[in-house]
Structures are given as structure tokens and as C-alpha cells.
């Protein structure tokens, strides 16, 4: 998720906290406006000193002269198992993807587990096997980890945190500030699969569909794109919690430009669409675990898109829009017939509605 790049000079005056919410709510973890406020208003000032670099998916640290990508992510999901995956796979792929979209080859992961007393061993074993399998598939090693057990009633079974390190791909420099009007916005495939799968798997809404989570490592796609169009890649992100809308809004705010999307180009599977229409949800706000967005310079955009489409698992990649000057800091989506609206970040989790 959001990584903090250490750029503060040592000996700087202690930073002020600007986060004024009196208590933590679920909204602060939903990946939208409230989450951003918590990160920018509390974590960043206190841990970084000053968050004047845009927050990215991984941090760049220098160790003995070498540049290394490092990131961490925590995984809290109910239910633990769902069609298409489980918390174990998410824990590996999520961190792998954060490294990948930072332009880094994921190399190694350490994992920590917070386990709830009473958790059945077979459940834990299934997750650890899933992690091992996902790591093998993603080509990363699991170098170690830690475990703590908490009382029954906490941890929803288990929480997993993974920290990953990787090496930056040469020739790829991700920086939202390098985005320019005329750049193209690419999307690797259909959106909303993961979030809707989880929503249905919880069983509270009594909906059934043949849907599964899209969890996978996107590194092979990123690598293919980097080989073909590396110098043209300005920015990438994996749109997890908060969906494509949130990721693109973060970019729009970081680069101060306007992102224009074409609604008819955005791929959404039928059943995701059906569930969203039924529940009054917008697929753009729904979490994904196996897709990524990229902004590419116009002269490289076709190369990048072709490389994605040729790569394994990239056949559904598509160009969904482009960068303009206005509306500054916002994301605008337009229909084929010329109707448009601004897409914003959500406040908290998307809620089904009846009105």
C-alpha cells in the first residue's frame, strides 16, 4: 500500500500531526479519503518528518550503494477462503504487486502472522501452503517470518503482514510528477472481480455468481511492458481497496492534472456488472487483486499495450483514457454519447444501496 520514502534530513524539528479524527473508524482502512487522511496526517508526518514526496507503493532505499525496493502490506480479509483464492495468496501477491508496480523485480518476502487462539491447524496449514504456492508462482523466496497468538475473539482467525524487497528494473522510473498531458492510461484487465467475490462470499447479501478473485502476480505483465516501453512508463499502481477510482484520484492529486477516462473502454465482467447494478455499487470503487494501471508517454503507449496484450494473462489489457490539463486534480469519465461525471474517492467502504 502506501510506502514512505525517507527524505527528511536528520535533526529536523518533530512534525505535527494533522489528523484530527477522535477515533479510528472502519473508513480509515477502506483505502479512500479517510485512509489517505490518516496516512498523510498522522503516519507520514511522524515517521517521515515531511511527506513532500508523493506516497508510492514501495519505498526506495539505498543499502551499501545499491537501490532496493521495499514494501509492506497487511492482510485482513473475511472470509479467509473465497472463490479464486485465500488470505495466503493475497498476502504474497499483494506485496509482489506493490513491488512490481513500483518498477521492481520482487525477490524476497518475510511474513508475520497474528493468529487467533482456537484457529484450526488445518486452516492455518492451508494458508501457509497457499502462500508457498503463490510464492513459487511469483518467483519469490519466503525468507522468514514471525508469529504471535492473540486471544479468541481477536484477529478474525488470522491476520498476515508481508514485507517484500526487490530490485528496480533498469530504465524504469516511476514518478507521478513526470506525468504530462497527452499521456495514456492503460488498464491490465477487467475490474471488480475481487471485491465482488468477497462481498458475495460473506453471504450477507444472499447473492450467487460464478465469480472468483483475480488475485495473481502482475509482475510478468509489468516486466513485459517494461521491456517494450520502459522509458515511457510514468506511473503504475495496483488498484486494491478503493478501486481504480481511488488510485487514479491519488495520481490526479499528485500530478495536478486531469485524467479523462472513456467509460465504454473500461472492462467489467457481466456478473460484476450485474452485482453492481443490483446493489447500486460502482465497479470503479471495487477492489482488485490482480490488475494494475499504468500511465505511459504517448509515443510508447501502443508498444506498451501490445506488449501487455501479447503477454500471458494480458489479453484483456486496454487503453482507458488519457491525461489532460483539466479538470486539475480530478478524474473525469465520459460516456460514448458525451455525458460526463467526476469520479471521486469514496469516503469508506462501498455500501449497497436501495435508493
Amino acid at each position: 500500500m502506501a510506502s514512505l520514502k525517507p527524505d527528511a534530513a536528520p535533526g529536523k524539528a518533530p512534525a505535527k500531526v494533522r489528523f484530527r479524527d477522535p477515533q479510528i473508524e472502519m473508513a480509515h482502512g477502506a483505502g479512500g479519503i479517510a485512509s489517505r487522511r490518516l496516512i498523510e496526517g498522522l503516519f507520514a508526518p511522524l515517521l517521515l518528518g515531511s511527506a513532500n514526496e508523493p506516497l508510492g507503493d514501495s519505498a526506495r532505499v539505498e543499502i551499501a550503494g545499491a537501490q532496493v525496493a521495499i514494501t509492506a502490506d497487511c492482510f485482513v480479509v473475511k472470509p479467509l477462503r473465497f472463490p479464486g483464492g485465500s488470505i495466503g495468496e493475497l498476502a504474497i501477491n499483494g506485496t509482489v504487486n506493490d513491488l512490481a508496480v513500483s518498477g521492481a523485480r520482487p525477490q524476497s518476502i518475510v511474513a508475520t502472522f497474528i493468529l487467533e487462539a482456537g484457529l484450526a491447524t488445518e486452516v492455518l496449514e492451508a494458508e501457509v501452503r497457499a502462500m508457498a504456492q503463490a510464492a513459487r508462482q511469483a518467483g519469490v523466496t519466503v525468507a522468514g517470518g514471525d508469529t504471535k497468538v492473540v486471544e479468541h475473539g481477536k484477529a478474525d482467525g488470522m491476520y498476515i503482514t508481508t514485507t517484500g524487497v526487490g530490485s528496480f528494473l533498469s530504465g524504469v522510473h516511476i514518478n507521478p510528477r513526470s506525468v504530462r498531458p497527452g499521456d495514456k492510461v492503460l488498464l491490465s484487465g477487467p475490474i471488480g472481480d475481487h471485491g465482488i467475490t468477497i462481498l458475495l462470499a460473506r453471504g450477507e447479501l444472499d447473492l450467487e455468481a460464478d465469480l472468483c478473485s483475480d488475485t495473481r502476480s502482475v509482475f510478468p505483465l509489468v516486466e513485459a511492458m517494461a521491456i517494450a516501453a520502459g522509458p515511457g512508463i510514468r506511473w503504475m499502481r495496483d488498484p486494491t481497496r478503493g478501486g481504480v477510482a481511488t488510485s487514479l484520484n491519488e495520481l490526479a492529486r499528485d500530478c495536478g492534472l486531469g485524467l479523462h477516462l472513456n467509460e465504454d473502454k473500461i472492462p467489467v465482467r457481466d456478473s460484476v456488472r450485474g452485482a453492481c447494478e443490483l446493489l447500486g455499487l460502482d465497479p470503479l470503487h471495487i477492489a482488485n487483486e490482480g490488475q494494475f494501471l499504468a500511465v505511459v508517454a504517448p509515443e510508447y503507449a501502443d508498444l506498451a499495450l501490445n506488449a501487455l496484450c501479447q503477454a500471458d494473462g494480458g489479453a484483456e489489457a486496454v487503453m482507458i483514457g488519457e491525461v489532460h490539463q483539466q479538470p486539475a486534480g480530478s478524474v473525469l469519465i465520459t460516456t460514448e454519447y458525451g455525458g460526463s461525471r467526476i469520479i471521486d474517492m469514496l469516503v469508506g467502504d462501498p455500501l449497497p444501496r436501495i435508493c
Partner: protein
Amino acid sequence: MKFVDEFRDPEVITRTAEEIRRLADPNRHYRLMEVCGGHTHAIYRFGLKDILPPNIELIHGPGCPVCVLPMGRIDDGLSLAQDPDVIFSAFGDMMRVPGTQGSPLEHKARGMDVRIVYSPSDALKLAKANPDKHVMFFAIGFETTAPSSALTLMRAKAEGIRNFSLFCNHVTIIPAIRAILDSPDMRLDAFIGPGHVSTVIGCRPYEWIAKDEHKPIAVSGFEPLDLLQSIVMLLRQLKAGEAKVENQYKRVVPWEGNRAALRAMAEVFELRPYFEWRGLGFISQSALRIRDSYAEWDSEQRFSIAGVRVTDPKAAQCGEVLKGVLKPAQCKLFGRECTPEHPVGALMVSSEGSCAAYYNYEHRKAMATSLAWPA
């Protein structure tokens, strides 16, 4: 998606918009009110204002059942659920609506058992699955939703499920339309009628709008082509100096309404003598309450509620915005103290409330300097 995609056909939309431009008299400014919050949402979602000529103004009406709910009723509902043996259930729309002590979601964060349900029948299922608890369903909605509440209570009674009750905040649409037309500041040319309410009440209840108030009304569906066709119908009526009720949404709305739904409502509900509407004040015969024959399933009769009236902050101009007298951006609190994240009034918290819709979809478009719009 069948019966949806056809009515979103971009080519037909473009041509219908052209027809609207042809029909609209360039020397006239049209003020059309869409009554229903679902229509407000659709207008913004489909960006319809971009393809209408500038002399057609769409005014947002008060048909948002969340928006017109006084804060005191939310407090009442939440206070009933303070008991740890009570499960508070409601539609997702209610979850972020602030009471004086916070919204249902905020109460959930503080330990109250709060559940989102898609259907009142799901709330009843919760009751069956949790015999040691009492499930309270916070019911909202106009006549579209009231029959489902009614049928759910009929089923609860028939099956003898006693640990279930409904906190009834159903309101009716005609008094709201009357209040709009009675408002001295209001100047409207025609109405886009609420399509889904009409599947229950039919088209007859709107006849007084045409006969007595001489305003055309087209009962409209919710897809872009439905709304655009309704506007075509209204413009034609206005051009011809006519005022009648037209059913644009024929594929779904029966002229006589849904008798079974009306029967269910009559069985379970009766009209309250009066009810307070946020922003509109007290309106007589405008809301439903549960009959004595179903007292056992009425949260208000089973439990005692404080019934405290909570007045909105003076600076909040929800009432004027609800009536369409003010645009959201003209309210002093809009975008400052009142945002979707920190809503002061319910018009900002409900996704179909005028203020939230305007904030989310429109105001930054309005702020952008150079934008090339299609002709």
C-alpha cells in the same frame, strides 16, 4: 443486461438529445423537476446534463427518503438498539446518516450490533437465525419499498416470528409534491414522475398535477433513454399548451398500479396524521405507521422511544435545497463544513441527495476552466 443496455444505446441517446434540442424553444427557459432521488442519481451518473441544451434546467425534488428523515428519527432508531440483545438492521443507504451521537456505522464501531441488509426479508431471516436476539429493521422508503416491508411483516406474523420488529419511516410521495407546488418560491414547468413508486401507486395519483396545477408530468424510467424520452414528452406537451399525465415507463408501470402491493400496504399500514419531513416541516397524511393489528412487530409500540425533535443547524439550508429553491452550492455550508465525509445534512450523506450528487459529480467540473465538451 437485457432491458438495461438497449436504453443506454449511445446512438439513440445522441439522436434523442438532438430531438430535445429541436423541440426546446430557444426563447424559453424550462424548469423541469425530477421528483425522485433515483432520477437525480441517474442524471448525474449518466452525465445527462451535458447533452441537454442550456435552457433546460433540471431541478432536484424531495424524493430522497434518506434526505427527508429528521435526525431525531435516526436517534430514536439507534436508541432502541442500545440494548445488547438487539440487532439493528437497515439498508446500506442508512449506514452513514448522522444522528446526534453518530451514524449507525459509528455506533457499530462503538460495539452496537449493526447489520446491512439488502432486503427486509433478509432482516427477518436474521431474526430466525438469532432467536436469542431481537432484530429491529429500520425501514425507509416511499411507496416503492413500503409494500416489501408490509409483506415482510405479514410473513413474520404468519410464521409467528416474535423477535422481529420494524421501525417505520415510510413516507408517501404525493404530499411531498404538493408541498413543492404550494411553496411560494417555486416556479416549475413540468415534472418527471417517479417511475418505481408508480409501479405501486400507478399513474392516477398524479392527475391533479395536470388538472389542477396545469403542469405536465411524465412518469419516467431510470435509464438515459427513459429520462430523455420523458423530457421529449414534456417539451411536446409544453409546446402544445397541454397538461396531462403520460406513462413513459410503460414496460414496467401499470396505469392502475399494483393491487397486491397496495393491499399489503393497507393490511399492515395506516397513514400517520402528520409526520415531520426534514427541510419541509410537518406534513399531514404523509407517512405510514403500523396498524394495531401488527403492534407486536412495530418497534415504536413494542419499545418506548424518546421521540426527541432535533432541529438542524440554522446555517444548514437543507429545506431550500430540497424544495429546489436553492442550488446545493448556494448553501453556506456546502463544501466547507458540509461534505460527503462530514455531512451536516442528509442531502450530503445520501448518494442521491442533491448535495452529495452535486459535490461528487458536478462541482469540480464547474470549477475547471477550460474543458472541451462535445457539441
